[in-house]
């Protein structure tokens, strides 16, 4: 079994919006069956547009894609039969309860009558919504809505699952619960997962392979380890004990590597040669009479990969809880 029969393939996908940008600008990829593919990129990169094309919600302007062996343009109904999707904005009806959503979804997917209720209950239980199952969704928290949306996507035993920013705005507990469920689906049920995210940690933790997307193009692709080893070199972050000596600190450090955008009161450089230079750095700072508040060695992250490939950082890379910019609804 290959990406072409059971997984996802895309060749040179392009989507132009009439009054907008080329949201997707020549994307090619192949996701193997059972794989978790992480599509990592900042806001506006084209992640959702790609998901919409692959889930037959939006036809591509040009290019070709298959999902589960079916062409997304010519065989839309067959594609819809093998996929499940939880979109970025969970489309839920505030006037229906979770159980009523299940009733609708099992009917839309054409489950045999006898199985609808049991399948719905099973999935509601799996995502931990039994208690709230008979309450109207209008009163649910963001995390509960996401869980219900995921459960609804699974109703018809899809072989390929699309999750568009499934953990954006979730608290850390809900996030790890969702990660576990995605790992279980892929590991135990062999479901192919296409997951988009703005979070490095998420791609790093969950994805077997990551495609980094920026401005509608894939700028790097590989396993998280491969991508990081491409960058190869760690960076060092120094905070002088006397904030007034920041510039002197920078002058010393820049002898050892290229400086990176850093947090206030610190200097960061990507080391030209690697960890061996650490001793020399400490000696030279000491020689210059610069006291240290902290010195941290950072192994390369996917953000470094992103920075190296695009010249800018991922926005919104911090996980919710560590940063309150997450857009909880």
């Amino acid at each position, binding site marked *: 079994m290959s990406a072409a029969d059971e997984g996802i393939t895309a060749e040179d996908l392009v989507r132009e919006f009439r009054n907008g940008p080329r949201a997707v600008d020549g994307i090619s990829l192949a996701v193997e069956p059972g794989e978790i593919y992480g599509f990592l990129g900042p806001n506006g990169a084209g992640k959702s547009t790609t998901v919409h094309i692959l889930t037959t919600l939006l036809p591509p302007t040009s290019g070709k894609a298959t999902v589960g062996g079916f062409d997304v343009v010519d065989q839309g109904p067959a594609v819809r039969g093998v996929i499940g999707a939880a979109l970025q904005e969970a489309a839920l009806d505030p*006037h229906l309860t979770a159980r009523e959503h299940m009733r609708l979804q099992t009917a*839309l997917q054409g489950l*045999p009558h006898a199985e609808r209720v049991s399948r719905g209950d099973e999935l509601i239980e799996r995502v931990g919504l039994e208690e709230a199952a008979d309450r109207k969704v209008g009163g649910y928290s963001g995390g509960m809505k996401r869980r219900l949306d995921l459960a609804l996507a699974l109703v018809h035993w899809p072989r390929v699952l699309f999750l568009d920013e499934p953990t954006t705005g979730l608290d850390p507990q809900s996030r790890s619960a969702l990660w576990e469920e995605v790992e279980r689906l892929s590991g135990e049920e062999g479901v192919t997962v296409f997951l988009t995210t703005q979070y490095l940690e998420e791609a790093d933790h969950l994805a077997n392979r990551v495609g980094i997307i920026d401005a509608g193009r894939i700028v790097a692709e590989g396993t998280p380890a491969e991508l990081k080893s491409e960058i190869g070199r760690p960076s060092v972050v120094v905070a002088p004990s006397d904030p007034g000596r920041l510039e002197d600190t920078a002058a010393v450090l820049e002898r050892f590597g290229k400086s990176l955008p850093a947090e206030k009161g610190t200097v960061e450089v990507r080391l030209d040669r690697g960890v061996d230079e650490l001793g020399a750095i400490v000696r030279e700072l000491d020689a210059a009479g610069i006291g240290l508040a902290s010195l941290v060695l950072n192994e390369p992250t996917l953000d470094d990969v992103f920075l190296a490939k695009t010249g800018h950082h991922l926005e919104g890379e911090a996980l919710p809880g560590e940063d309150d910019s997450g857009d909880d609804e």
Partner: protein
Amino acid sequence: MIKTTEAGPTRYLSAALGVAWRYLHNLYSRPSMFIPSLVFPLFFLAAFAGGLSVVGDAPSFDYYDFTAFQFCFILIQASTLAGVFAGFSIAGDFEMGMGRRIMLATRRRSSIVLGYGIGAASRLIVTWTIVTGVALAGGMQIAGGGFDLAGIYGIALLSNVAALLFSAGIALRFRSLSAGPLMQLPVFIILFLAPVYVPKELLTGWIEPVATVNPITALLNAARSLMAGEPTGVLTAYLVVFGLIALMGFWAIRGLRQAEQAG
């Protein structure tokens, strides 16, 4: 458990019934959704049964019962508006994102239009019961037999289908509730450019030629003749309404294709 879904046609119908179920569920669990569609017909019925009934006493008005005469219009109006209101729901669903869920979960998407159609037609049971009940309470005399009555309700049902398809076509093109007036106004206008208050023979001025070509006139005349137990032009009326359904069906399916292109 057999991990499979039903085969094609069963699944198609199942999806349509799912859409219809949700439509009716939301309609009747929120009175603010279905009361407005009854206000107009009941208002007209009250007005006709009251002051306007003097029209029926005019010497040239030769229909046997003025309330029955108006009832035919009100039944068709109420059924047609029920179709338009279902169009509002389609637009609302696309505006709030439910449209995407439904588009993603159905294989053959024309089942979505069928589903709203089944929903819109089913709500007629309530509409008809209320409108008919009020008319009978207001003293309406029915001259025709059971078969004639079936003919009248048949025309009303098919008008509902045509109006639903018309509004679905608009809803699917605009996918926003702001398109509401575009669904409602044309239907209102065409309804009132028919011989509403008096038979067509009594119309004068510009409205007379307009009423002659208005398809609603044919439906109205046929319904009134059935009510009187003297059917005339019934076949024509059915041909007209089936023609409208074919036309509007095409319009709705083209709208669906546009919604698919827009994502």
